[in-house]
């Protein structure tokens, strides 16, 4: 009887899930130059605001929902990232950088609170809870790593009904993102990596990628202000795979040269021996299969996605129309073409595996890639462990548009910038590109530096931003175990304010790489020696002066001859001599 009831309930639930397609997922594959492949996974689920408030969680994960409600968090953005997006070769960033994070872990949230102190207390509760949920050291985001950005971030959601929202932002640049963060990430998905596109996500390939970022975004979305609101949760994974590297079998991962017969040699060169070869560039797109590059098969559609319509096509590939794509499956699938045939989307079969096979092919048309709005690079100048300067080079490739952007730096307290040395210089114009500055200086061991700049860069020019900084020496207990590796300084976040605008409210972002800061280190092995030696010098100084102050001078002949051991021995000798003398 009980089992029958639960069976009924199960079916009712599934029917309910089918009735409202509140869950969307999509994988977009895009071949990039130099044999790279961008895979963008996107999972989106909605929960009505009323159900969310009543803790009636259906698609929204209960573990995360309860944390957010406990910490009064209205909007959350969490990023786990590794690697660097090579904008020079790969072009525009996925999602225009809006779903990208700084290397390591980055977190920002809008928290409802009546005062700044209360907001900070809730922020600490949030990071500690998320730390447990995601197996990451998020609890190390304390006051020294928290800033309150002014112009770099705007809420993505609708917050008409709530007031007193506080934006807090923290970065952990040293955090090593790895499989222990992927497992809880997959658990938040309704299909949990068992079906649908998430079945392709595998820790070995994801964290072997040249660039990867995992994002979680929670925001309230309303149809009309304050009405028909839903809480939207979006999970995104972007990864850039090196196809040749990914295709290596796991049990034999060491790359070996191909047999010479398979290589096309440059015959215009002279060779001394038959076993030498200058390989020719093949000028072909490499062949690959989904199962090869992801290491796992795609296990059919997730049953929670829409059954028909464009939402049901969850696998898309963005390649020139002439590229051959074969579909390898036993189940039923459909295919549709859009965007002048450059986008091919597939509806996955249910309960059957599907594989895409792209053979090696010589192409006549180039790959599709958008041009970034800005290029940015940041580095540390100078040498030595005492001081240095940071140089950010930002290039505007557009020949016509001046770009306005916000530049955000969040620096650790032991890296002390000198704001009077801040210079923004554009080669092509004499106008000062620096329009506005928000600066909150660091206080030792209490908080870090928060620097936010609004800059304008003229068309087709390069802006060079520099400032000097000094490195502090820390107490020996404040150094990590690998002190001589150096400390990570978080990347700069650049947000494009105009004239380009994103279609939605996500904004246009790019992030630089993090910096490695080598600090002067004390000798960790000798606290006792230092205490003893310093104390000895102080005792010598004090003892000498104290001795002089409290003692009295007398003539050397006014006191009995040398005391101590010498005097004692001399006295004995005298006495013995005296005795013998008598005898």
């Amino acid at each position, binding site marked *: 009887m009980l089992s029958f009831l639960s069976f009924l309930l199960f079916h009712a639930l599934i029917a309910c899930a089918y009735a409202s397609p509140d869950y969307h997922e999509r994988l977009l594959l895009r071949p990039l130059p130099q044999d790279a492949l961008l895979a963008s996974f996107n999972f989106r689920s909605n929960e009505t605001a009323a159900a969310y408030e009543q803790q009636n969680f259906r698609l929204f994960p209960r573990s995360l929902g309860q944390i957010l409600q406990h910490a009064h968090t209205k909007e959350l953005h969490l990023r786990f990232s590794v690697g660097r997006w090579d904008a020079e070769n790969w072009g525009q960033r996925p999602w225009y950088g809006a779903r990208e994070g700084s290397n390591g872990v980055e977190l920002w949230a809008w928290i409802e609170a009546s005062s700044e102190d209360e907001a900070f207390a809730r922020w600490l509760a949030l990071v500690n809870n998320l730390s447990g949920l995601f197996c990451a050291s998020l609890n190390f985001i304390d006051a020294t790593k928290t800033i309150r950005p002014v112009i770099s971030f705007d809420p993505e959601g609708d917050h008409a009904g709530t007031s007193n929202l506080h934006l807090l932002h923290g970065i952990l640049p040293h955090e090593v993102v790895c499989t222990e963060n992927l497992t809880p990430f997959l658990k938040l998905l309704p299909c949990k990596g068992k079906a649908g596109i998430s079945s392709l996500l595998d820790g070995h390939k994801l964290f072997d990628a040249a660039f990867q970022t995992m994002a979680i975004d929670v925001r309230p979305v309303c149809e009309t202000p304050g009405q028909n609101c839903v809480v939207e949760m979006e999970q995104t994974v972007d990864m850039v795979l090196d196809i040749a590297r990914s295709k290596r079998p796991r049990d034999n991962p060491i790359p070996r040269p191909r047999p010479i017969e398979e290589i096309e040699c440059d015959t215009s060169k002279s060779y001394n021996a038959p076993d030498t070869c200058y390989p020719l560039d093949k000028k072909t797109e490499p062949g690959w299969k989904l199962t090869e590059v992801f290491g796992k098969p795609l296990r059919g559609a997730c049953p929670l996605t829409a059954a028909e319509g464009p939402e049901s096509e969850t696998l898309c590939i963005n390649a020139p129309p002439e590229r051959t794509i074969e579909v390898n499956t036993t189940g039923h699938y459909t295919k549709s073409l859009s965007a002048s045939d450059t986008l091919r989307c597939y509806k996955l079969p249910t309960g059957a595996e599907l594989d895409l096979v792209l053979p090696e092919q010589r192409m006549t048309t180039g790959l599709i890639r958008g041009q970034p709005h800005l290029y940015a690079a940041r580095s540390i100048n100078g040498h030595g462990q005492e001081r240095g300067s940071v140089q950010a080079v930002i290039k505007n490739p557009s020949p016509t548009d001046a770009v306005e952007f916000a530049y955000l730096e969040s620096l650790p*307290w032991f890296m002390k910038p000198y704001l009077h040395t801040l210079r923004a210089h554009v080669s092509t114009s004499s106008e000062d590109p620096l329009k506005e500055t928000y600066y909150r200086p660091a206080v030792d061991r209490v908080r870090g530096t928060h620097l936010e700049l609004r800059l304008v860069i003229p068309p087709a020019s390069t802006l060079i931003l520099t400032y000097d900084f000094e490195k502090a020496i820390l107490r020996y207990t404040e150094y990590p175990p690998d002190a001589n590796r150096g400390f990570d300084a978080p990347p700069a976040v650049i947000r494009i304010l105009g004239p380009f605008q994103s279609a939605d409210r996500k904004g246009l972002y790019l992030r630089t790489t993090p910096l490695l800061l080598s600090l002067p280190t004390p000798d960790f092995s*000798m606290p006792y020696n230092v205490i003893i030696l310093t104390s000895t010098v102080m005792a010598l100084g004090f003892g000498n*002066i104290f001795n002089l*102050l409290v003692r009295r*001078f007398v003539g050397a002949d006014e006191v009995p001859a040398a005391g101590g051991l010498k005097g004692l021995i001399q006295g004995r000798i005298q006495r013995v001599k005296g005795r013998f003398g008598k005898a």
Partner: protein
Amino acid sequence: MAPDSTHKAALFAALFAAAAALRLLLFQAFPLLPHRLAGRVELSTPVSSFKRLQEGLYLYTHNVDPYHGGVYHQAPLLLPLFSFLPDASSSPFATNLLFTVVDLLSAHALAQIADSGHAAATRLFKSSRQGLRWSSAAIVAGFLFNPFTLATCMARSTTTLTNLFILTAMAKACQGASTTFLLALSAASYLAMHPILLFPPLLVLLYDARADRSKTTPNALAFTAVHTLGLTVISGTLLLASALLTDSWDFLGATYGVRLLLPDLTPNVGLWWYFFTEMFDSFRDFFLGVFWLHVASYTPGLTIRLRTQPLFVATTLTGIFAIFTPYPSVADAALYLSLVPLFRHLFPLMRYTFLASAAVLYASFLGPAFYHLWVYAGSGNANFFYAITLVWSLGLSIIVGDSLFAALRDELDVQRPELRDKEVKRI
């Protein structure tokens, strides 16, 4: 007499002109030298660095409270003073001129101290060797052309201002000028806090000078009370003016709090930074208390024991500051080493002159080299520079102790002339 004084005035004019010319020439000929020197940890400490002063000025002129950050730890009244000058990074001449003038004024005060003759002969004590002395011109030349003074001036460290006020306070105390003495000492204490410890010996010096001048002895208790009150009022006024200027009392924690609690462990020539880098956290507060108590303990002891020679006590205290304060620099040592020649009559009684001068020279040459090995070359570690700061402190403390021995021995010669040139013992 008249031709002699004109001759002396001409000599001083020549000395001052040469010193000013040398400084301005160095500033002009090597425009990068001040930046180089300002970056040296031996010359610029977190509480005196010119670069940090510039950062504070920048924040101050851009309406950011400089004391809300962890970089600027210097006195608030320096901000309006330097904000009148043109920006030092684009047109440094006015700033350079200011630091040159500060050095010349210090030299002038030193000349006044030397001329007063208080070093060898005070109201209650006349040294038996008081004929043995250097002329004030020689002492001033020793100050102005001392490489340590010169380097400090080139680095534009604000310790030069503190030194100016300390020397002025000494000079005014020698002359018996109460008001200017109190003003100068308050200014020095306001800038650097520890010069307040010079108040007892300099008050005795002032009392002696006043008694000498008026040939009557004022009531000691009333004299002390009035001057303590005066010092409190002037210091209070300076602090209040600072609070009004910055609209809060936060500057107290960022200036004096930093000196007391040592949150910034940037290396310097003193003994504190490495000790507190390596100190166990649970003992940090205890040792901070002990170290400060240690510095303060010298003032009463020396003042009571050498009550008859207050100028010597004040000089010895400047030496102790150069060794045992939390953020000492070469500038503090330069002040002490310029004051020591006033006591030329004690030199024959000193026993370890060679050892002490060798240690100081050794440290001055090897210090920069070992710092380079640690921070830039990476072929040495922090212990290299730490060892040199130990030698430097040891060398200075030998000079302090040895000169104290000489002063006490000199005193004994007056009390018991029959022991002169004989071997003595301490019991």
